[in-house]
């Protein structure tokens, strides 16, 4: 248990009569990619919302590096190194790629942001921002406004911003969504490289990517985890095949 970075314990959330999460307990260990899969409406996004603090669970708790963060708001969890990417873009369309990443670096280095000195005069922060952009392959478009980026580049930028937090754990909500074959391959390679930097809780529908990346997979159906195990265990699980994977294998 010592290498568990992030875990949920008995997390439950209902919206009226709909149980979006039911007694969900899972963990994320150092150096691994733990994929959460399941059909549409299984409660994956609700689960991520609860882990990251956007949705308050009815019961259960979230523990990051041994500390209970259940009562903390989104920004406080982020300050502790819980980084996330979004299924639907939340990027600021008017801002440049570099501004997004630079802001992430500045915010991580000094959460009380300065009010006077120009953001671009923080040389070491800009250097780190450019290094992060290079790692995700966005150096060439550093000065481009987000509105002018391709969908795949926006996904890459989302990952870059998460990396600026020096993350303890990465929670990624469908990073392959909307990417073509090349885009998915590129993102799969990128996530594969990142796992040693921070473990990744990966919610994803692209099963090729999941099978290529995941060390463990948990299957969420109607808010409940019906199976959890290695790729081979999940592939051969009869319940999982019936509930979700049947046509995808």
């Amino acid at each position, binding site marked *: 248990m010592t290498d568990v970075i992030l875990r949920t314990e008995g997390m439950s959330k209902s919206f009226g009569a709909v149980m979006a999460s039911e007694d969900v307990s899972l963990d994320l260990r150092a150096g691994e990619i733990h994929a959460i899969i399941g059909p549409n409406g299984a409660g994956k996004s609700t689960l991520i919302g609860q882990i*990251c603090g*956007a949705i308050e669970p009815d019961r259960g708790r979230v523990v990051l590096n041994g500390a209970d963060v259940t009562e903390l*708001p*989104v*920004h*406080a969890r*982020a*300050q502790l190194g819980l*980084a*996330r990417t*979004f299924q639907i873009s*939340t*990027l*600021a*369309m*008017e*801002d*440049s790629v570099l*501004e*997004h990443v*630079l*802001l*992430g670096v*500045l*915010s*991580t280095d*000094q*959460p009380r*942001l*300065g*009010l*006077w*000195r*120009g*953001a*671009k005069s*923080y040389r070491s922060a800009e250097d780190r921002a450019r290094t992060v952009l290079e790692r995700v392959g966005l150096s060439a*478009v550093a*000065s*481009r*406004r987000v509105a*002018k980026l391709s969908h795949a580049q926006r996904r890459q930028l989302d990952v870059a*911003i*998460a990396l*600026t*937090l020096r993350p303890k754990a990465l929670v990624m909500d469908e990073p392959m969504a909307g990417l073509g074959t090349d885009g998915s391959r590129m993102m799969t390679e990128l996530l594969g490289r990142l796992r040693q930097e921070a473990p990744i809780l990966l919610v994803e529908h692209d099963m090729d990517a999941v099978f290529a990346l995941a060390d463990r997979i948990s299957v969420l159906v109607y808010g409940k985890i019906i199976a959890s195990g290695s790729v081979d265990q999940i592939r051969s699980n009869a319940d999982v095949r019936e509930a979700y994977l049947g046509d995808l294998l």
Partner: protein
Amino acid sequence: MISEKLLNGALIAGLLLVVLHAHLTDAPFTITLATKVAILAVAGVGLNIALGLGGLVSLGHAAFFGIGGYAMGILASHAQSYVPLMQSPVLIEGTKSMPVIWLVALLASALAALLIGALSLRTSGVYFIMITLAFAQMFYYFAISWPAYGGEDGLSIYVRNGFPGLNTLDPIQYFLVCFGVLVLALLVSFRLRTSPFGLALNAARQSTARVQAIGQNPFRLRLTAFVISGAITGLAGALFADLNRFVSPTMFSWQTSGEIMVFVILGGVGRVMGPLAGAALFILLEHLLGGVSDYWHIYLGALLLGVVLFARGGLVGVLTEGRSGDD
């Protein structure tokens, strides 16, 4: 099209040239108009921090403008009547010193902005607009029902307050005082805009989830911006009251809030020099069209409609279109 930097320089230089020409041709009324432009631009600079940078559509900035005005009126009226403001537990006397009055105006309006912001920023959209409007109206009716300071009739100050080393009764000297404050306010606005805080505030305007995800509290960002915004608008109120040597509940009225917003929209929301361009255009229209008809606001309305429909960047945006974006 010209670059925004060039336009900014031209706006500042233009205002100075108008005043210089008026001074040389002995036209004090024009200097007074230019002073009014500078003061109203300061109010607009304040609102532009909340509105342009933070996306906070405040229809209550008259509250801060009025607080600044009454800070001047109350302190100066006590100084002029030689009656202390307070005798116990500590003796507080009135003052005719502009720097002291400015400090009080800044602190009082910042405190009001902190309280109003702490409550109203828990809402957004139309609710935020309505709550800020409601606060300003509360101040408006409070001022009307405050007979000690003139009630509905307002408060007159016989002699303009003093600034060390200057004769503020001389129009050109008072203009220079207000112009100096405007330059400082513009500098604050510019630095704020390019600072890490400004970057985060601007990002929060576009996407709350984005700034939360990098560990920033959007409420705190917006509240800080609202307080700075309110304080600058309060300072403008003190200058405006000194210009007129008169303060009245009208400074708190929703029309005043609307006019400050009009300066910002006409000039260009979020543009550093937008408030100056907007205030200059507003005063110019008021001066030129006001002589033609008492209902000159009809033309202003048509212009505002045109800006909103066809020139979202305002006057500054129209003149610099295509020059501010990169890549």
